[in-house]
């Protein structure tokens, strides 16, 4: 299919879910139950279109072409198909935006569309009976729209816009049961924690906009490639990369902003599968992959470290959690750390590959947990039991018998996440671990901690996943509720089957032990870095072009097989990594069985021996407590102080000056009354007094007057003469 048509299809993929949102929002009440059918069929169409794009783009070939159509520019090349148009027009400055489809986006579109479609399907049954049924599907539509926007964005502005929209739909879906305080709290927390990351992202965007005056990926990367650096400084370029990556830290729940994701499990379980396992949280990884070309070596080290820390930290927390969905949530955080770590060390293809494989099996895990919770909930409802928590694994057990199909799929995808051969998880995880080993070999020093964290998390993952599996599915039912669970109907099971089938190796590579022989590494090629050479890892320089004599020779020697030194080292690390990871995963699984299945070892003794470690893990390393005590308390404290300051001091000053003015007024009034008026009255009174004195002379008697006249005459005569 021609590039233009694909772009139009891409636009349709973007807008169709929005249509679902609008229909369900405005007419949902009226169409009632049909809203799920409308939404699911729209998503079905989107899924088909996504497959078309995927097939045509990844396996097709395109002639270079440029079409200018008024304001809209269509660009078609083998690498990317894109539309650019001016959105914000300030005459002197024109902010161009658009959508682009490259292999990365094409694959991601399928991931989003398929999981979203399956989750829609699953929700038809799972959410039935909810009073806000149509609203739920509207929100799912909004989410799919925004997620497709992130996938298709070819500029930072759209990326940021859809980034925020994803955040808001996540907020709405986490807090979907907003009557529960914990749900609306979790939604709020997710949004605010994400906002912190988004602020970093936006600062990164501002730095780039300031430096290049555009937000298109092409233009920015082109400018960096030409040697124009932000503020003319490599440090700022690194910083810009890290700031942009902050967005990924928030959205992909990386350390230290991972705290929101486990709480987000308050949302309906299909939402957890769609948003908080497979797609939205992968957006951070996608963003990192998308702007990969602009990361400097220092930024990549930072990214790798964040990923490694997250992977390890979350794995340790998952060991002791008892809530079914929270174990999965921490496992998600841990796996996202894997992907980020992989991108950071330079195993770009494998990182993204893990995103895809993880999306399938994690969505399957979550939907299976949804199936379990749904069954538990129904059983509890049936028994009239309102005290048993349907999500607590201590209330489960023995579900293998009552829910055989759920168990089988769950077992298979658990094997996939543990990285057992013949699964997709093995292919991607092995690649990542090989990448970390190669990275550590090439850079040395403290970077060895990264593969160590990676391998340790692999072992921990195997352990806690099997702990979850054994505790909930094996053994005897621990409660009456668990005993009375029933297998769900096909609407719930179908998505599980589809997703677990996708976790077989043969979709990706003919060789179950080596992903490099499949189509994926050919489709997803690490983008050529645009950063100045001295700011990159030398081993990542394509074709070994470097002043460093040693590396040059080394790569020259290998250039027949590998495009850079890293590829070569990774290839060499492939088998050691595979053996090591198999051993470690096997150990983890073995211990899980020893602890929980055969009960040869007693977990309680371990807990009693290391109470501190247990506490730290169970309390999630006290992150929530620490944040509440510091950041949250400080913000609220500041807010309180500001409000009081405003009320008492600033307003106090205003009222105080008013008080002073008023009292001054009183004082002047009194002064006026007493002193000035007093003087005036005094003169009047004196006059009156003299008048009244003189009055006595006026007797009315003629004789007195005559006497006065004569006295006066005499005086006159006396004085005159």
């Amino acid at each position, binding site marked *: 299919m021609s590039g233009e048509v694909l772009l139009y299809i891409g636009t349709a993929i973007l807008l169709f879910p929005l249509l679902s949102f609008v229909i369900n929002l405005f007419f949902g009440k009226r169409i009632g139950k049909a809203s799920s059918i409308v939404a699911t069929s729209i998503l079905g169409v989107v899924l088909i279109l996504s497959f078309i794009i995927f097939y045509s783009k990844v396996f097709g070939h395109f002639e270079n072409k440029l079409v200018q159509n008024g304001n809209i520019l269509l660009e078609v090349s083998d690498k990317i198909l894109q539309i650019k148009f001016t959105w914000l027009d300030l005459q002197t400055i024109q902010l161009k935006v658009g959508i682009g489809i490259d292999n990365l986006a094409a694959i991601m579109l399928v991931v989003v569309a398929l999981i979203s479609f399956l989750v829609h399907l699953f929700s038809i049954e799972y959410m039935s009976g909810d009073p806000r049924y149509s609203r739920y599907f509207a929100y799912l539509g909004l989410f799919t729209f925004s997620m497709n926007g992130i996938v298709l964005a070819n500029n930072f502005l759209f990326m940021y816009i859809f980034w925020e929209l994803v955040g808001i739909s996540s907020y709405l879906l986490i807090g979907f049961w907003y009557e529960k305080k914990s749900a609306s709290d979790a939604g709020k927390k997710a949004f605010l924690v994400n906002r912190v990351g988004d602020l970093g992202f936006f600062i990164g965007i501002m730095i780039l906009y300031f430096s290049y005056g555009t937000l298109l990926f092409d233009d920015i990367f082109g400018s960096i490639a030409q040697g124009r650096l932000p503020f003319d400084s490599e440090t700022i370029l690194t910083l810009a990369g890290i700031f942009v990556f902050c967005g990924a830290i928030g959205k992909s729940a990386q350390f230290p902003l991972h705290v929101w994701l486990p709480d987000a499990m308050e949302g309906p379980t299909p939402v957890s599968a769609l948003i908080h396992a497979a797609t939205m949280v992968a957006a951070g990884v996608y963003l990192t992959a998308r702007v990969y070309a602009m990361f400097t070596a220092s930024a990549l080290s930072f990214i790798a470290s964040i990923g490694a820390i997250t992977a390890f930290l979350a794995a340790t927390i998952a060991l002791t959690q008892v809530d079914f969905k929270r174990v999965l949530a921490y496992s998600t955080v841990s796996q996202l750390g894997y992907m980020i770590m992989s991108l950071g060390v330079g195993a770009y293809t494998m990182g993204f590959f893990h995103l895809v494989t993880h999306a399938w099996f994690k969505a399957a895990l979550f939907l299976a947990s949804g199936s379990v919770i749904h069954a538990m909930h129904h059983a509890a409802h049936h028994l009239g039991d309102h005290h048993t928590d349907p999500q607590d694994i201590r209330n489960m057990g023995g579900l293998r018998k009552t829910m055989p199909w759920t168990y089988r799929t769950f077992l298979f995808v658990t094997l996939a996440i543990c990285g057992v051969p013949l699964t997709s998880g093995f292919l991607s995880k092995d690649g990542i671990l090989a990448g970390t080993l190669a990275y550590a070999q090439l850079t040395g020093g403290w970077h060895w901690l990264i593969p160590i964290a990676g391998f340790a998390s692999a072992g921990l993952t195997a352990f806690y996943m099997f702990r979850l599996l054994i505790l909930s599915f094996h053994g005897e039912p621990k409660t009456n509720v668990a005993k009375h669970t029933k297998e769900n109907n096909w609407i719930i099971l179908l998505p599980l089957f589809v997703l677990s089938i996708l976790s077989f190796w043969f979709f990706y590579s003919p060789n179950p032990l080596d992903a490099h022989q499949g189509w994926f590494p050919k489709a997803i090629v690490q983008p050529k870095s645009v950063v100045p050479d001295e700011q990159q890892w030398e081993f990542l320089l394509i074709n070994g072009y470097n002043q460093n004599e040693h590396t040059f020779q080394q790569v020259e020697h290998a250039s027949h097989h590998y495009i850079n030194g890293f590829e070569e080292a990774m290839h060499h690390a492939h088998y050691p990594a595979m053996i090591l990871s198999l051993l470690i995963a096997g150990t983890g699984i073995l211990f899980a069985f020893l602890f929980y299945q055969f009960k040869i070892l007693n977990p309680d003794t371990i807990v009693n021996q290391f109470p501190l470690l247990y506490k730290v893990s169970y309390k999630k390393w006290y992150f929530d407590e620490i944040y509440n005590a510091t950041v949250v308390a400080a913000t609220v404290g500041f807010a309180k102080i500001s409000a009081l300051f405003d009320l008492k001091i600033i307003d106090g000053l205003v009222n105080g000056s008013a008080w002073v003015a008023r009292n001054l007024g009183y004082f002047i009034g009194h002064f006026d009354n007493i002193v000035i008026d007093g003087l005036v009255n005094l003169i009047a009174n004196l006059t009156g007094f003299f008048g009244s004195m003189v009055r006595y002379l006026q*007797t*009315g008697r*003629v*004789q007195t007057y005559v006497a006065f006249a004569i006295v006066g005459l005499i005086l006159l005569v006396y004085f005159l003469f």
Partner: protein
Amino acid sequence: MGVGLTNYIVLSAILFGLGIFAIITRKNAILVLMGVELILNSANINFVAFAKFNKLNIEGHIAAIFVIMLAAIEVAVALAIVLNIYQNYKHINVDEIDSLKE
């Protein structure tokens, strides 16, 4: 020693003083009027004396006659007033007639 101007003037002054005394001290309005007559007559004596001893000549006499005539008229008017006062106050005690004060 003959009778000189000084004697006349002294007489006139005594008459004037008596007149003033009468006006100021008497309570009866008639007596006050008589005091006034005394003053007028003291003035007449002065006029006549100055006509005789100084260069006033005939004018002094004329003035005296004029004063006598005026005094007659004045007495007529004043008595009419006194009668009116009497009608209003039923007495002619000038001490108690002080409505001029008002």
